């Protein structure tokens, strides 16, 4: 199966007021990001609480038109990179997946869940260790194993890395909308991981390996940027309730924030996540590349909906390493 989704009639889903022009062009001509993007933050959130209402309110606050979802294929993409029973705060909580599914189903979408864990080849085991297996069955959700499906090729729209194209699995090619459901975490190479980096999981291990070493060899910031430029329509709902700080994205410690974030522009949401962690967005390597290509980093171009981030920020511990020390001005909250 081959093909370029840019030619597909299915990719006509439009978020009200924010057609993502860059993703529909075939050439790497970036237009300057001149408009504001909304980011919704909800506080005092907990698993098993009112997540459905929070997510619904957040999507509406970001100008999503529910009518445009009727009959559309929505793929929810949680972070299940390397689940462990010992670290439930490493992966997207199952209740967030279930709540997101309920909202999109309410609006008439056909919803499935997909993930290509980067460090674990036994996807069934990853689902079981993360608790997602039970959630899928309870909510009668189809799971798409993005690591092992038939693939199609998509031209690299971003062109910041040397890869001329990407292989995407069938479920990604067929989706009208991919919803990045990341966990808010630090990252021992990149500083942080959020909505944009979570999209590594749509890249199939059957073509790229476990880990997806081809992406590392072509530059993590570059491949994060280019995958997001090439994958088509996305929005994000961030599990920022139980988060990870320290040696993320796998071995870090729990940090409770009690937040949920929603946005239709992943770059704007990640910039907000960085600020919440007390990190400078422009100093996160993949955000620096995404700036003005995929979305805004500047506060002046991010419209805060719901809560304002300033009162919610809490410095996340990050590793005391050369490549991470400049991510914040204050020389505090580093850990060895």
């Amino acid at each position, binding site marked *: 199966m081959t093909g370029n989704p840019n030619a597909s009639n299915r990719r006509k889903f439009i978020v009200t007021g924010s057609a993502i022009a860059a993703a529909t062009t075939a050439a790497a001509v970036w237009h300057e990001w001149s408009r504001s993007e909304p980011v919704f933050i909800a506080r005092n959130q907990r698993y098993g609480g009112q997540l459905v209402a929070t997510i619904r309110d957040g999507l509406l606050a970001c100008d999503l038109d529910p009518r445009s979802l009727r009959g559309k294929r929505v793929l929810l993409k949680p972070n299940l990179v390397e689940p462990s029973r010992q670290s439930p705060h490493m992966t997207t909580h199952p209740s967030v997946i279930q709540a997101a599914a309920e909202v999109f189903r309410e609006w008439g979408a056909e919803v499935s869940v997909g993930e290509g864990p980067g460090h674990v080849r*036994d996807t069934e085991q990853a689902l079981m260790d993360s608790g997602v297996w039970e959630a899928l069955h309870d909510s009668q959700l189809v799971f798409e194993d993005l690591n*092992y*499906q038939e693939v199609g090729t998509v031209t690299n729209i971003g062109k910041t890395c040397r890869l001329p194209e990407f292989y995407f699995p069938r479920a990604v090619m067929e989706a009208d909308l991919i919803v990045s459901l990341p966990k808010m975490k630090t990252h021992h190479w990149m500083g942080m991981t959020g909505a944009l980096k979570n999209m590594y999981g749509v890249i199939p291990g059957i073509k790229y*390996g476990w880990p997806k070493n081809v992406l*590392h060899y072509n530059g993590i910031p570059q491949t994060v940027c280019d995958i997001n430029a090439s994958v088509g329509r996305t929005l994000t709902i961030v599990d920022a309730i139980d988060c990870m700080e320290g040696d993320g994205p796998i*071995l870090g410690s729990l940090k409770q924030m009690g937040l949920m974030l929603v946005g239709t522009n992943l770059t704007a949401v990640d910039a907000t996540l960085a600020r919440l962690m007390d990190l400078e967005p422009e100093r996160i390597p993949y955000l620096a590349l995404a700036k003005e290509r995929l979305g805004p980093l500047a506060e002046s171009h991010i419209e805060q909906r719901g809560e304002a981030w300033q009162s919610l920020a809490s410095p996340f511990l990050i590793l005391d390493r050369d490549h991470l020390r400049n991510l914040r001005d204050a020389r505090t909250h580093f850990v060895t």
Partner: protein
Amino acid sequence: MMVTTAEWVKQQQIRLAAQPVLGYALGQAPAAEPVAISALTAIGYDLRPAAESACKCLLASQNADGSVATQLNDQGPFWTTSLACVAWQKFGLKWDGPPAYRDAVRRGLDFLLSFGGEQIEPNDEVGHNTLLVGWPWVQGTHSWLEPTAFALLALRHCDQSAHPRAREAAELIMDRILPGGGSNYGNTLVLGQRLRPHVQPSAISLVALHRILRGGRLTSTADYLRGELHHPMGMLSLAWSLLALTSADWHTTQQDNAKFEAALAKCFERAGPSGSENPHRQNLLLMALLYRESPLLDLPEF
């Protein structure tokens, strides 16, 4: 009603005989790893027509350079060449296979030996020996545990145990075992932190090192797997664990397979009454239930 292991084995043989060429999930296009596992399982259960279909599928997909791609085309990656070589070799040994299989093995091995993992300058960021070559998932990238383990199995099954690359592969697999036992995808320490083991790669390490080495971290890896049997385990991880623990107990006088029944029962219960949702996983478990008679463990001392 719960199915017994014996009943399950019987049902799965019927299913395998009916459809040996398959993909990673029901309804998906055939792929090399599932077809190779299917071939080996059929060989183990004397299902010659099924084994032949699977081996012929792999043969038809072998590229001019000897490689067999993961999705049975010419686009790579090609780590599944290892598993194809093992399947052809075992078929040939069991049923005096045609010359085409011997030729396919030779070409497949030549391909495998033509490349290796990219070496990385030693540094303090990772804890393993980055100069051991091994095999990568994708050509042009670093070596990782499972592709190296599969390549070692291919070399051993295909009478190349004495090859220096086989010796080095064993060394690499040992190097990637975590200090407390078990392995993950192939890192040990990253930025000073010890990583956690995972069942499947831990088990595959032991299978690849079957009858090579004993004791030390291999014993602690087996202990780790025995502990994990008490937790819910996916079918693939369970299958590899059964093979690994059979290998670990190779020299004990009495094999006690009853100890695996609890884990098997939980697995069958989760799979549901028909258990037909993932034939690839079922094939691997079916092969593992041959225990000492599994074709993958049919190896001499190293």
